[in-house]
């Protein structure tokens, strides 16, 4: 019998849904075994009956539930709770669902301050009150899905990796559990490391790393050893795709684009503190950790929920 799947998106950009489509042909192969019972992005299935005739939100029962996006308002919270009730296994898909994602950078500001900036001071907008008619109230901050309901499987990434979605669905179809191994991007990265740098200066990403595209990956020097801030040491591996139809090396996604890792897969293990760990990693190869600009925001860019980012008390004058 086909496995029933429900998918929901909350506070999103749509990238993780696009990633599901990016699975491509393997998705069409999986389709006969999957029965999508609810997926607003692709299917005309509504919450309160097709003509809005029902009073209670109705998400059908499913074996597997997938939620992308963090939780920003009361309605999204309600949807997450209904999904949890109706789904046997719940997957948090993408870094917004797992850690709040980019929108959780807003957790550095009190809600009132954000409203002030967007609605009342915006330069193209006639000054206005904050909108409220029929709109679900906002929560005080952006929450990850597991701060609202229990989550069984976490598949992070901004956006996530289609290979991981296939692996997870395949495992769940066989009745097995799925978990991404606790390895760092560096553990997976094929670049050449010499465990030292030439100098203490941290370079800006704009200056562009040294590379030669005709050389194999293990002949390209580690970007951090070249002096760039690369979040590989403190970031969970899983973004890479095995080159050459599964025969070649796995190269982490941004590394493959000749850019340092920006940490979009989040911490390697639950409870890790990438901010502290990264400062240690930087110092250990001889770079000056104090030079990292705006480091609280930079090193928590995709993971601001779970109170990793919060408003700082005003400095005493």
């Amino acid at each position, binding site marked *: 019998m086909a496995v029933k799947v429900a998918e929901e998106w*909350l*506070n*999103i*950009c*749509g*990238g993780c*849904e*696009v990633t599901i*489509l*990016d699975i*491509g042909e393997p*998705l*069409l192969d999986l*389709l006969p075994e999957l029965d999508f019972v609810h997926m*607003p*992005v*692709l*299917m*005309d299935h*509504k*919450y*309160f009956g097709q*003509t*809005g005739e029902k009073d209670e939100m109705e998400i059908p029962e499913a074996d597997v539930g997938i939620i992308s996006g963090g939780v*920003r308002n009361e309605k999204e919270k309600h949807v997450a709770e209904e999904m949890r009730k109706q789904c046997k296994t719940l997957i948090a898909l993408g870094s917004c669902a797992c850690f709040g*994602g*980019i*929108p959780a*950078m*807003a957790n550095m500001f009190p809600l009132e301050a*954000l409203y002030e*900036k*967007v*609605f009342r001071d*915006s*330069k*193209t*907008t006639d000054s*206005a009150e904050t909108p409220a*008619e*029929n*709109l679900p109230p*906002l929560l005080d901050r952006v929450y990850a899905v597991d701060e609202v309901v229990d989550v069984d499987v976490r598949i992070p990434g*901004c*956006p996530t990796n289609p290979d991981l979605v296939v692996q997870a669905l395949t495992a769940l179809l066989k009745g097995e559990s799925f978990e991404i191994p606790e390895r760092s991007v560096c553990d997976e990265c094929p670049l050449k490391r010499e465990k030292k740098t030439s100098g203490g200066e941290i370079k800006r*990403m*704009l*200056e*562009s*790393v040294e590379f030669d*595209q005709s050389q194999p990956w293990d002949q390209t020097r580690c970007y951090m050893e070249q002096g760039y801030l690369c979040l590989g040491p403190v970031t969970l591996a899983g973004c890479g795709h095995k080159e050459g139809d599964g025969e070649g090396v796995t190269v982490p996604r*941004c590394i493959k*684009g*000749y*850019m340092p890792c*920006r940490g979009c897969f989040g911490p390697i293990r639950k409870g890790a503190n990438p901010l502290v760990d990264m400062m240690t990693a930087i110092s250990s190869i001889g770079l000056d950790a104090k030079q990292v*600009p*705006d480091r609280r*925001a*930079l090193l928590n860019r995709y993971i601001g929920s779970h109170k990793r980012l919060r408003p700082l008390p005003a400095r005493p004058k």
Partner: protein
Amino acid sequence: MHKSIVIDHLCRVEGHGGITVRIKDDKVADVNMDIFEGPRFFEPLVVGKNYDEVAPILMRICAICSASHTVASLMAVESALGIKVSPQTRLLRELLVQGGNIESHALHLFCLAIPDFLGYPSAIALASDHLQEVKMGLELKKLANTIQEAIGGRAIHSVNAVVGGFGRLPTRGALLDLKEQLKRGLEQSLATVDLVSGLQVPDFCTSPDVYVALSSDRAGYSLFGDKILLSTGETKDIGMYKEICNERVVAHSHAKQSLFKGKPFAVGALARMVLNGENLSGQAGKARGKLGLDTVSGNMLYNNAAQAVELVYSIERSTEIIDELLGAGIREEKPVEVEARAGTGTGAVEAPRGTLYHSYSFDKAGRLTEADVITPTAQNLANIEKDLRSSVENLIDQPKESIAPKLEMVVRAYDPCISCAVHLLEVNFE
């Protein structure tokens, strides 16, 4: 007679929205496109950030038009800081944007819109009867991914397009590969035009529209330009975008609405086709005639046909760009060096759903002090309400169950990206 029609949740559109229609004495009293998507407050998030950190954050307003956000953002930064990029950088950026256009249109046509016209509730259901067509859509999407990966370094949320240029340039081999794949893509896009030409386009939502798009910056059709064209005959410099996108906050929406001289207007593929379509050549020019887009109908359901023509255009133009790059030879150049300075600048690009503006100010250290992003969907919202109103007026004698899906079809034709529109959450009381 109906009192009201409420569609609590629009499906097969990007993000969270609904429709409320109030009917009084057999007349349409009120039409609201309700936007309850939670705001993500993108603009305040980049205040205080260094100029090189702005695009990597703001491109994440939307995954489907991430390439357009990236390029508009970089153009705004460069305009503010007085940076001139090389012709090669401009071509590569255009290729990235064309890749995004192919992706977005293929997704919208095959996964969201065509099921409407063929009477299926979803692309999944469509796949059971029309597997070849759905496969073709996914292959076009894959081609678009390949383009964005080759140029931007990643298929979604690119890393390689940076202020001043590109971190890594595509190799000759990668471009030749792409060119080969584009050949197959062209055939598929022409097959898409055939498919769309066979669809019946109902006329219940016809009403006069004002169209807005960037004027082409070169001979021929283009997604870039520094003038804004209006179908009323007026033109504006992109720096004057505020005169067109005079946003207002409305109570029923977490997205602001745009009005020009108090009237709604439409942006997007159909608007481009109306304003610039006669500049199309090649197969795209032929497709425009085949799909009846050489006359202006005022029927937004033709936006789907315009997207099909643009699929052909973006694929033909991508091939042209690659030929131009290969002809000149790829120059191994680093991004232009940047000297921080205070300034204000605007970047605009025709994103898949219409004109997208990013406008920023920086302090003398190169830190952002103010950001303003106007998305196409935000500009279209008032026009969507106008079209919903005329549709309900035309359909008022029909049963509610038959009206509601048609209203959703109107909204879907605009290919609205509600997440985009609510990147900041804006609303207004009248």
